[in-house]
C-alpha cells in the first residue's frame, strides 16, 4: 500500500505539493488526475524517493522507498518512458536494471515478450518510437514482478491498439491483487481504466473517491429534449427552476430538472416530444468542474468554452486543457 501523509514540496516560492494526504489500495487501478502542473509527477517522485519532501512523508508498505529491502521486487515504477541510453540495446538496458535488482537475467526475455518487444530486443533503444519506449518502460517495471506498480502517463504516445493493451495490462495487474497507481491527463482513459481516482490541483487534494461516485456527484441532471415547438416549453422549464440552452442542432439542453418532470411539463403544454434523453456527465466534465479553480494555466478569457472550435486557433497556445465543457 502507498501512503502519502501531509506531503509538501516547494520549488522556490512555489508549492508544488501542498499538504497532500491519500492512500492507494491494492486490487484496483487507482487513477491520479490533475491539470498540468498540479504536482502529479512531483508526488510520484516523492513517493519513489527521487526527490525529498519539504514536509510530511510518503511510505510504501510502511517504509520509505529508499529503505525497501528489494526495491525492484516491491515496486515497479515508470516515470518517463525515454529514460534509457539511446545507444544501448533494449535487452542490455533491462539486463543492467535486472542485475542491479538481483533479478535473474532470464526475466529480461520474459518481460520483453510480455510487452511485445521480443523481436526488437537486440535493437538500440534510441531507434524506438514513443510507443515502443513506453512498452520498454513498462517492461522494466515488471522485471521484479512487484506487487505495487506506479505509472506516470503510461499511454502517452501509444497507438489505439497500444492503449487498449496498456489498459488491459493494468487492469489484469490490479485483478491479481496488485496496487496499480496511474497518473493521466486523459480523463476519458481513466474513466475506462481506473475504478478509484485521486484528483489534485495546485498540489492539494480535490477528490479521492470512486470514478462512479465522482461522476454521479459532479453535476445536476442534464436532459436533452428535442421538440418542434421549443419556444412553447422554454418559459415553462425556466419557471420550474431549470436553465435551458439550445444545442447546435436545435435540441434543448435542460439542466436542473428530472426527465420525468420535463416530460410532464411538455405533456401539459401539448408539445410533442421527439427525443428525451438523460445526458450523463462524463468524468471529464466532473473533473473540470472540480478543478476549475485549480488549473494553473487558464486559457485566456473564460469565454473560450462557448466559442466554436474554429476560433481556438486564434488564441494563445493553451497550457493545459479547455477551461470548461462545451455544453452545459
Amino acid at each position, binding site marked *: 500500500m502507498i501512503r502519502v501523509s501531509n506531503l509538501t514540496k516547494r520549488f522556490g516560492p512555489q508549492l508544488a505539493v501542498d499538504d497532500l494526504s491519500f492512500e492507494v489500495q491494492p486490487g484496483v487501478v487507482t487513477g491520479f488526475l490533475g491539470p498540468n502542473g498540479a504536482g502529479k509527477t512531483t508526488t510520484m*517522485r516523492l513517493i*519513489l*524517493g*527521487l*526527490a*525529498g519532501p519539504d514536509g510530511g512523508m510518503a511510505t510504501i*508498505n510502511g517504509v520509505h*522507498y*529508499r*529503505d*525497501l*529491502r*528489494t*526495491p*525492484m*521486487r*516491491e*515496486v515497479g*515504477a515508470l*516515470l*518517463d518512458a*525515454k*529514460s*534509457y*541510453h*539511446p*545507444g*544501448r*540495446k533494449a535487452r*542490455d*538496458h533491462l*539486463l*543492467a*536494471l535486472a*542485475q*542491479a*535488482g*538481483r533479478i535473474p537475467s532470464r526475466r529480461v526475455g520474459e518481460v520483453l515478450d*510480455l510487452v511485445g518487444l521480443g523481436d526488437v530486443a537486440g535493437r538500440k533503444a534510441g531507434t524506438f518510437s514513443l510507443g515502443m519506449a513506453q512498452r520498454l518502460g513498462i517492461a*522494466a517495471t*515488471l522485471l521484479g*514482478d*512487484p*506487487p505495487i506498480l506506479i505509472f506516470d502517463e503510461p499511454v502517452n504516445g501509444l497507438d489505439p491498439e497500444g492503449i487498449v*493493451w496498456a489498459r*488491459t*495490462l493494468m487492469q*489484469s*495487474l490490479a485483478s*491479481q*491483487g*496488485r496496487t496499480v497507481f496511474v497518473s493521466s491527463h486523459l480523463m476519458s482513459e481513466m474513466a475506462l481504466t481506473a475504478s478509484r481516482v485521486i484528483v489534485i490541483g495546485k498540489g492539494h487534494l480535490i477528490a479521492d473517491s470512486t470514478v462512479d461516485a465522482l461522476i454521479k456527484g459532479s453535476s445536476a441532471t442534464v436532459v436533452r429534449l428535442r421538440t418542434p415547438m421549443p419556444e412553447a416549453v422554454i418559459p415553462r422549464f425556466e419557471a420550474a427552476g431549470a436553465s435551458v440552452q439550445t444545442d447546435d442542432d436545435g435540441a434543448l439542453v435542460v439542466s436542473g430538472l428530472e426527465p420525468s418532470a420535463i416530460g410532464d411539463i411538455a405533456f401539459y403544454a401539448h408539445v410533442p416530444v421527439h427525443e428525451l434523453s438523460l445526458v450523463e456527465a462524463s468524468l471529464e466534465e466532473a473533473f473540470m468542474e472540480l478543478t476549475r479553480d485549480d488549473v494553473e494555466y487558464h486559457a485566456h478569457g473564460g469565454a473560450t468554452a462557448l466559442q466554436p472550435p474554429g476560433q481556438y486557433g486564434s488564441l494563445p497556445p493553451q497550457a493545459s486543457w479547455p477551461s470548461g465543457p462545451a455544453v452545459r
Partner: protein
Amino acid sequence: MTRTMSPPRSAGTKAPRPTDTLRSEWTKLRSLRSTPVTLAVIAVMVVGLSGLITLAVVTNHRRGAQVVTDPVGILQSAWFLGLLAYMVLGVLVMTSEYSSGLIGPTLLATPKRMRVLTAKATAFAVTALVTGEVVSFVNFFVSHAIASGYASFPDPSLGDHNVLRAVIGMGIDGGLAGLMGLALGALLRNTAWGITTGVAITFVLPLIFNFLPSSWSNPLLEYWPTQAGSQLEEVNRQAHALTAWWGTGDLTLFVILLLAAAGYLLVKRDA
C-alpha cells in the same frame, strides 16, 4: 491478455548487494558501443602521436640536432591526449545518466545512492586503469621499436632507472583522470560544464599559473593536483615539483575529495 503472470510475491527474496550494483554498472559500460570505440581511438591517437614525435626527434637527431635527454618525455607529451580522453569519458559516464534520464531507473533499482556512485566509479576506474596501462605499454614499445633502429639515439629500456615507473604511472594517471571526470560529471550533471571544468583544471589553469610571478607559480604548480600527479610519469625529478609518489598522493587525495563531494550532493539533491 493471453498470458498470465505469477501472483504478487512477498518481499522475501534476497536483497541486492553492492556487487550486484557493480555488475549492473559494468553491463552499462560494456553495452555501449561508444565505450570500446572511444578507448580504441584513445589508443590510436596516443600511440600514433608519440610514434610520430619519436620519428621526428630521431630524424632530427640523425641530422645532428641536440640529443633528447629524456626519451620517455616523448611518450608523456602524447599521453596528454589520453588523459584528456579519459577525463571526457569519465564525465560522460556520469552525465549521460542525466541527459538520457536513465538516472531515474538507476536510482529506483538502487535507492542507496552512494552505492551507485561507488559502483560506477569502480567499474569505470578499473576499465580506465587497465586500458590505460595497455595503451601506455604499447606506446612505449612502439616508440622503442622506432628509436632502436638508430644506435646513437638514447633508447631507454624498461629496466632503466624510473622508466618502468613512468610507463606504469601514465596508466595510473589515466585512471585518475577518468575518476576526476566522473566526479565532475556527478557534481555538475552537465556534459559541457563537466568537460570544461576538467580541461580547466588539467590544462588551462596550470598554463595560466606559468604567467604568475615565480614566487606564486612555483608552489602553486608544485601542489596543483594534476601537475603533482604527472610527476609519476617523469623519469627525472623536476625542479619545484613533488616527488613522484607524493605527487600521486596529492592527485589521489584531490580525486577522492571530488568524489566525496559528488557523493554528498548525489544523496542530498533531488535526482
